[in-house]
């Protein structure tokens, strides 16, 4: 070729080789042992989506988690070792969540990680923690996390499994409200998991599926889906989505007269959307929730939790998704207390045949084979604005389904060793 194209000079080539060698040597020297701190503070990493559409839910999770750490420390900590919460923003983005997790594990040297609201993100964080032997307690609602392909000995799951929560909702509703059912499903894993839960319960109760309509995530206008649903003449419409999609679907369903013709169910009730969108859209909608403050009428631990929250946060009440932050952090710290250490192997061993606790919503148990937190589910009906006796009087408790691990998928079904 022409002489203007200069050959790689011998200088550059040597320089490159030197750097290659140096880099490997430096890397080897800089490699540090993965041993956790032996004493001192128990560091709990807490990555949640503080920026973005679920900022409010995440902010309440942080508040509840800080309360959990305080309660744990007040009761003596782990043989005098106090806990500390390190909050991070995962920006509702899996790559960012993994980066934050790596920062917590590698730089901050946390002892355990609790967090995530989104199903996809907690799978990503779980993958990262699994590879590094870091204990992770996921707060998001998901079935997938406990399955053999994703589960690991360091995986814990405080969030509900839709199989259980939606199952409880189905068991309550299908027996009372009718038997022709239509499904409006968001086109992602969570929507399908809720659908499957209803399917299992529905088959057992002889329910007839008259329409099944899927919608893309983030669909703002549901109007084009209603004619088909209406023409199928269902008794019940199950709205299986979350967040803003849920609010818009309910609002528009109301406008298009669906509420007058059928009962509307929501697989995972979001109290935050009800506040953001106005109680009107949610009137008479029945849904499953993990927590409602009126649980204090049933459980002493709820009363204490609500009171502590109100004291620390000037009269507020903990929200449904927020309270996961409390349970998720506190249960792991209590498990550590039982184990006498925060070592992942010790924690897993401490679960034994089941770790029972009652921290904020009555009796709960971490199941041995899949570390799922078996807990109560609240079946709630949303009150209309005129029925509400106070701004916090948002729901009527229709049923409290007790924790029952026979209603969960068995570990054999999940592909795990029992």
């Amino acid at each position, binding site marked *: 070729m022409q002489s203007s*194209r200069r050959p790689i000079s011998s200088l550059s080539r040597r320089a490159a080789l030197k*750097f290659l060698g140096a880099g490997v040597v430096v890397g080897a020297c*800089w490699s540090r042992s993965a041993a956790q701190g032996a004493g001192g503070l128990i560091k709990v990493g807490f990555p949640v989506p503080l920026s973005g559409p679920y900022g409010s839910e995440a902010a309440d999770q942080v508040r509840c988690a800080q309360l959990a750490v305080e309660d744990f420390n007040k009761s003596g900590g782990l043989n005098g070792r106090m806990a500390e919460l390190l909050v991070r923003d995962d920006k509702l983005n899996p790559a960012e969540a993994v980066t934050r997790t790596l920062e917590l594990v590698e730089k901050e040297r946390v002892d355990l990680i609790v967090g995530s609201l989104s199903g996809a993100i907690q799978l990503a964080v779980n993958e990262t923690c699994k*590879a590094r032997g870091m204990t992770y307690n996921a707060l998001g609602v998901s079935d997938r996390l406990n399955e053999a392909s994703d589960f690991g000995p360091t995986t814990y799951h405080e969030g509900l499994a839709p199989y259980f929560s939606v199952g409880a909702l189905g068991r309550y509703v299908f027996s009372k409200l009718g038997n022709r059912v239509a499904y409006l499903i968001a086109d992602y894993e969570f929507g399908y998991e809720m659908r499957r839960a209803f399917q299992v319960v529905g088959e057992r109760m002889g329910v007839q599926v008259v329409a099944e309509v899927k919608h893309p995530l983030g669909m703002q206008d549901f109007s084009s889906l209603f004619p088909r649903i209406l023409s199928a003449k269902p008794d019940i419409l199950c709205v299986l989505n979350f967040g803003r999609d849920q609010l818009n679907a309910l609002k528009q369903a109301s406008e298009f007269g669906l509420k007058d013709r059928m009962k509307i169910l929501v697989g995972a009730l979001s109290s935050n959307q009800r506040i953001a969108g106005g109680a009107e859209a949610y009137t008479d909608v029945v849904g499953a929730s993990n927590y409602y403050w009126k649980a204090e009428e049933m459980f002493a631990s709820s009363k204490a939790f609500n009171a502590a929250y109100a004291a620390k946060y000037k009269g507020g009440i903990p929200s449904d998704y927020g309270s996961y932050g409390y349970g998720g952090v506190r249960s792991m710290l209590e498990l550590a207390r039982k184990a006498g250490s925060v070592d992942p192997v010790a924690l897993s061993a401490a679960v034994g045949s089941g770790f029972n606790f009652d921290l904020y919503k009555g009796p709960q148990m971490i199941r041995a084979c899949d570390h799922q937190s078996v807990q109560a589910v609240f079946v709630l009906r949303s009150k209309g604005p005129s029925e509400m006796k106070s701004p916090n009087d948002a729901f009527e408790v229709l049923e409290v389904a007790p924790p029952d691990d026979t209603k969960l998928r068995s570990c054999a079904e999940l592909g795990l060793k029992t």
Partner: protein
Amino acid sequence: MNSMSILAETSRAERWRERRVFAWVQRHRVAAAAVTLSLLPGIVPHPALAINILIYGLFATGYNLLFGYTGLLSLGHAALFGAGAYACGIAIASGGLPWFAAILAGIVLAVAVGGIIGALAIRTRGVYFGMVTLALAQCLYFICYQWVSLTGGESGLRGVSVQAVSLGSLRVSLIDPYQKYYFLLVLVIVALAVFSRILESPFGAVIEAIRENENRARASGYDLRWIKWISFVLSSAFCGLAGALNAIHLGIVSIDTLFYTTSGTVVMMTLLGGMGTFFGPFIGAALFLSLEDVTASWTTHWQLIAGLVFIACVRFFPKGVWGSALAMVRR
């Protein structure tokens, strides 16, 4: 003399003049990059951020070949990054292939995707080029979203687990962040060396000619469509490599990798650093990611700061940080 050698002569003469001024850095730009990047883990707050800078720097470099050097604004480069990531990820998670084969698979798929998108997009120009790339990239996004059995769909691809890498008798642990960094650094430096060669070749001169004055380049007798397509394909190779490395680094591939926001991010980084410069993309990636990392720990409204910095850049420093610095030095 034919047009090709006239062009080569002119650019050679110009380069000779430039060389007298920063002969050193220009001549050894790959080495200079290697040195600076070797020191990166010591500068940034945590190693995962350094690795992200490395990967996005490479991604932006690949993008820069098309945008900065050839002058084609693509708005769908997420498709190439994502194709590389998914191919590598699937090769490891489902195919059980070793890391080098998986990375190669990433590059190959990205090149294939780039070849198709490029061939279709090259037929248009101006803003339509951007729109075509955007539309086609979004189509790929939706295809991968729906193809759950292959990609994991919205839940993402998990199981891209490479715990360690054996180079002969040397065992590099990819769990240790610093070993991982230097391992990836070696791959990136090799890629940069290839990139540098491309830029110095006659091809490199031609694509810059296209950027400066397309009609003139056409009049000089070059087959623009062919050259633009080659540029697109080469750009895809680097972006695909970046994607593959990203899959190995994170251990997952998320569907967001293919979404247009990723395309937007790489454009921002390239512009921030300085388009059409060698070091610009890495500097842009470093600045952007560090800015994000630092402001996110102060406030949840970090996007405001990132957006304002970006606007300031476009408005006042269109050459980007490095480009403006270069311009100041040259004056």
